[in-house]
């Protein structure tokens, strides 16, 4: 049976996560990640969106509920993960950092070299293969981190607030480049952020989450074809941002109401 194009790549059903200290981070989370979409998880700090992403990645086991991959055997291998910090090995060159996922999979350096250089070129770092992370700016380090995630040609790219620590100019540039990469590589992206503007600019679909315990509060589709500098200053973008802000505000109020 061939999967339909919009079938979920991965489905979370009734996922709950209780940490050892008794904190209920997620409760009854239902989430479908559709093939080829750019999905943002938007929510306030501590709403469990990063926990949800880690569960999708298999870095954390859910206490309750199920995580189902459409293609279970290839699930692990087809994930790329970008952390909030660049999380590079400081002792290794840019090339060696990007080589890491292939190396761990038993790949030969010479055989992988072309692919690594191609990936570095994609993120604009072809000239920095021999540099060490400390020699790069924050934005460039994040590009290396993205290249490392892309080098295995993952079906799903998971990003955990990757640009939160960067300055605005760098963040805009990386947002633009990320949209281009997503278009060119036909991959699925799950992007965790607390920025309304970032999520509207990048996504096809925004899932707004409410915290303690984390669950889906509302969902918003962004139907704008072009994601460029003009979109960022358009009335359409502004109105989407207003709707998303209201949804986020509602999610936070709902939680405050529950607390009282």
């Amino acid at each position, binding site marked *: 049976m061939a999967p339909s194009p919009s079938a979920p790549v991965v489905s979370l059903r009734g996922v709950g996560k209780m940490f050892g200290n008794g904190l209920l981070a997620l409760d009854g989370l239902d989430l479908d990640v559709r093939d080829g979409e750019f999905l943002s998880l938007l929510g306030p700090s501590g709403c469990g969106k990063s926990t949800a992403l880690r569960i999708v990645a298999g*870095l954390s086991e859910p206490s309750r509920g199920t995580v189902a991959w459409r293609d279970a055997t290839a699930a692990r291998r087809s994930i790329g993960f970008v952390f909030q910090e660049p*999380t590079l090995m400081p002792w290794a060159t840019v090339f060696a950092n990007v080589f890491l996922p292939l190396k*761990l*999979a038993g790949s030969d350096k010479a055989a992988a070299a072309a692919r690594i250089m191609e990936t570095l070129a994609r993120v604009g770092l072809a000239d920095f293969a021999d540099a060490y*992370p*400390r020699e790069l700016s924050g934005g460039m380090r994040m590009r290396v981190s993205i290249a490392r995630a892309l080098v295995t040609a993952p079906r799903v790219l998971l990003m955990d607030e990757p640009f939160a620590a960067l300055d605005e100019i760098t963040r805009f540039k990386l947002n633009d480049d990320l949209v281009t990469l997503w278009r060119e590589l036909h991959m699925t992206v799950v992007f965790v952020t607390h920025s309304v503007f970032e999520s509207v600019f990048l996504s096809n679909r925004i899932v707004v989450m409410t915290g303690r315990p984390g669950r889906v509060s509302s969902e918003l589709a962004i139907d704008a074809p072009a994601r460029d500098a003009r979109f960022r200053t358009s009335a359409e973008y502004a109105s989407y941002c207003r709707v998303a802000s209201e949804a986020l505000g509602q999610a936070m109020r709902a939680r405050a109401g529950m607390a009282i």
Partner: protein
Amino acid sequence: MSDATTSERREQALRILAPTGVLALGIVIWDLVVRINGIPPYILPSPGLVLTTLVSDWPILWSSLLATLETTIEGLALAAAGGIGLAMLFNQSRLIEHSLYPYAVILQVTPVVAIAPLLLIYLPQQAAVLACAWIVAFFPVLANTTLGLNSVDHNLADLFRLYGASRWQILYELKLPAALPQMLAGIKIAGGLSLIGAVVAEIAAGSAGAGSGLAYRIAESGYRLNIPRMFAALLLLSLTGIVIFALLSWLTHLVLRRWHESAIARES
């Protein structure tokens, strides 16, 4: 730009000239004290006499230096291998760590001067001296490497797990390189301690023979009131310590210079 380099150069010159000046001043005062008071060489030899003794006794001192150096280097090598090996073992198994770590600490806190005579009863002299050097030197390597292995970036560890890294790959590709700065800091401390261990054991051993080290020469010269030779041997020991420290610092710099914060010169 040029201002920065000249002030940098001045700073560097100061770093060499200032201690050299103190040394020269100290030697001059030492020499004057001996001359003016007419102190006999069996109480305090003049710096010149120490130097001439160093030259005239060179054959004896040289072979002693080689003996001490051999023990020190072997002790250091075994301490590095043992400390790193044990730290890796501890890192892999909590049970082994909990079982053995207290004894590593006990070995460290018990003064080696007190252990040396016992070791000399049970072991041949050379082995006992080496064991002393090892006992004092291995602990800083063990403690520092353990700290390094345990302070791996959690996200990097997650990343390795995500890509299905084996236990061995995590140790070899992630933990060991991450622990390198601490490991080298431990080895740098161990270099000096290994020399101390060797000296302590040699003094405790106290028996003569072809393989007698510098510390033995000091003890022996003391009995014979050959004070100039005591000073000459002491000078050699001190120089040996300096050279070992400098070599290990240089090694640390070579290994870390491309990536570690400690090895990066910052412009202010």
